[in-house]
C-alpha cells in the first residue's frame, strides 16, 4: 500500500464534528440562514427567550430554572405472529404539584390511548406494528417540549409526531396561536413563508410538497394548534405528520421559520 493511501485511511480517525461539517448541499444550507421572512415588521412574535443566560432569570416564577424530569411510566409490549406493539408512555415528574404538569401528562396519555385504539381498530385481524416513544426536545430554563413519536406499519408505514410545549416563565401549556399577539395577522405571513420555502425546496432539493392552492390538497394554513417546537438555535419549527402536506416518502415534514427577534 502506498504511503498516501495509508494516511488517507488513517484519516477516518477525524473527529465526528469535523466529518459532519461537510455537506453536499452547503450552498442551500447557507441560503436557508439568509432567508428573510416577508414583512417582518408586521409579524410580532411573543416568544420568550428560549435559552437565556442565568442572569436574566426571574426568580419569582416557580418553574424558571427547573429542569423537568421525564420518566417512562408504562411500557406496553404486545408481540405475536401478527402484531408488534411497542409503546412507551412518558410522565413529567415534578413535585411542585403544578396543574400544567398534570395537564400535559393527561394530554400525552390521551393521545397515546388514541393511537393505540386507532391502531387496533385499523389493523383488525391482519398484520401490523405500532411503535410509540417520546423525546424531550427542549428542557431549558424557560421552555419545555416533549414529542410523542409514533410509527404505524400495516401495508406501509405511517409516521406521526405530536409536540407538547410548556412555557416555564408563565407555567402555561402553550398552543401555537398562544405565541402570537395577533395570530390572525401573523398566520397570513407564516403561511406565505411556509409556501415560499416549500416552493424553493422543491426547486433546489428535489423534494415534493402538496400546496392546496396548486395541488387541490395539502398545505393551506397553520392552525391554532399547529404542531411546533423550538430548534436548538431558538428558531420556531412547524411540523406536519406524514401525508399531511407531502407524499409518504417525505415522512414527517418540518419547516423552520427564521428567527424574528
Amino acid at each position, binding site marked *: 500500500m502506498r504511503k498516501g493511501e495509508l494516511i488517507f485511511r488513517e484519516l477516518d480517525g477525524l473527529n*465526528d464534528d469535523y*466529518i459532519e461539517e461537510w455537506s453536499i448541499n452547503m450552498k442551500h444550507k447557507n441560503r436557508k440562514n439568509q432567508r428573510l421572512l416577508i414583512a417582518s415588521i408586521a409579524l410580532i412574535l411573543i416568544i420568550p427567550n428560549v435559552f437565556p443566560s442565568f442572569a436574566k432569570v426571574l426568580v419569582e416564577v416557580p418553574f424558571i430554572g427547573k429542569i423537568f424530569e421525564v420518566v417512562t411510566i408504562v411500557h406496553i409490549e404486545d408481540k405475536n405472529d401478527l402484531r408488534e406493539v411497542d409503546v412507551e408512555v412518558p410522565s413529567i415528574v415534578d413535585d411542585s404539584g403544578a396543574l400544567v404538569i398534570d395537564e400535559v401528562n393527561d394530554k400525552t396519555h390521551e393521545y397515546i390511548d388514541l393511537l393505540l385504539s386507532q391502531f387496533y381498530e385499523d389493523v383488525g385481524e391482519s398484520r401490523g406494528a405500532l411503535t410509540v416513544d417520546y423525546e424531550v426536545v427542549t428542557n431549558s430554563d424557560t421552555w419545555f417540549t416533549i414529542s410523542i413519536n409514533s410509527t404505524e406499519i400495516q401495508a406501509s408505514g405511517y409516521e406521526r409526531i405530536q409536540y407538547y410545549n410548556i412555557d416555564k416563565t408563565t407555567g402555561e401549556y402553550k398552543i401555537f396561536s398562544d405565541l402570537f399577539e395577533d395570530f390572525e395577522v401573523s398566520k397570513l405571513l407564516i403561511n406565505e413563508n411556509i409556501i415560499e420555502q416549500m416552493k424553493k425546496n422543491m426547486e433546489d432539493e428535489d423534494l415534493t410538497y402538496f400546496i392546496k392552492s396548486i395541488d387541490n390538497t395539502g398545505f393551506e394554513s397553520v392552525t391554532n394548534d399547529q404542531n411546533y417546537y423550538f430548534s436548538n438555535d431558538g428558531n420556531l419549527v412547524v411540523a406536519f405528520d406524514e401525508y399531511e402536506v407531502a407524499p409518504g416518502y417525505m415522512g414527517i415534514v418540518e419547516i423552520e421559520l427564521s428567527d424574528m427577534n
Partner: protein
Amino acid sequence: MKDSRIIQLFCKRSERAVTELNKKYNRYMNRISYNILSNPEDVEECVNDTCLKIWQSIPPTIPKSLKAYIGRIIRNLSLDRLRKSNTDKRGSGEIEVVFDELEEVIGGYNTVEDTVLTRELMKEINVFLGSLSKEKRVIFVARYFYAENVKNISLNLNISESKVKTTLHRLRADLKEYLKSRGVEIWEKENWSLEN
C-alpha cells in the same frame, strides 16, 4: 427522519431501518464511494455492503454521529474495493491525486521499509484542524476525508477553484510544519510490511 429515530429502528430490528437510512443518506454514501471508485457497479455494491454492515452492527454499537459512522464505513469499504480492483485501472482516478497530496505532508521524513503510522498522528491532526477557521477545516475534510475534487469543493462553498487549491496547498504545508513542531513520529519501525 432524525438520526436518533433511524438508530431506534435498527435497534428494534425494523424493516424500515434501512429504507429510512437510504432515504436520508443514499446520496451521501454514493458520493463518497464514487469519489474513491469512479465505477458505478462497484459503488452500488459498496453502498449495499455498507447498509448490511450497519444492520449487523447497530445494535450493539450506537454511534454518536450516524453521519460520521456511515461515512467511515463506506469510505473504508470503498478503499478496500479499490485495492482489489485491476491495477491497470488504478492510477487514473482523482483519489490517486489525493494520495499524492497526502504524501507531501509526510515527505522528507525518514522512511524505512518496515514502517507503520502511529496513532499519535491522528490526534495531532485533529488538534491542528481544531485550530483552523471553519472554512479551511471544511476544505481539508472535503479533500482528505471525502476525496472531493477541487471543482466540487469550490462550487459547494461558493469560492474560486484557485482559492481552494491555494488553501489546500497552504494547509498541507502548515500541517507538515505543525507535525514537525509537535515532534510527531510519522514512522516507527515495526515488523510490518508496507506491502500489506
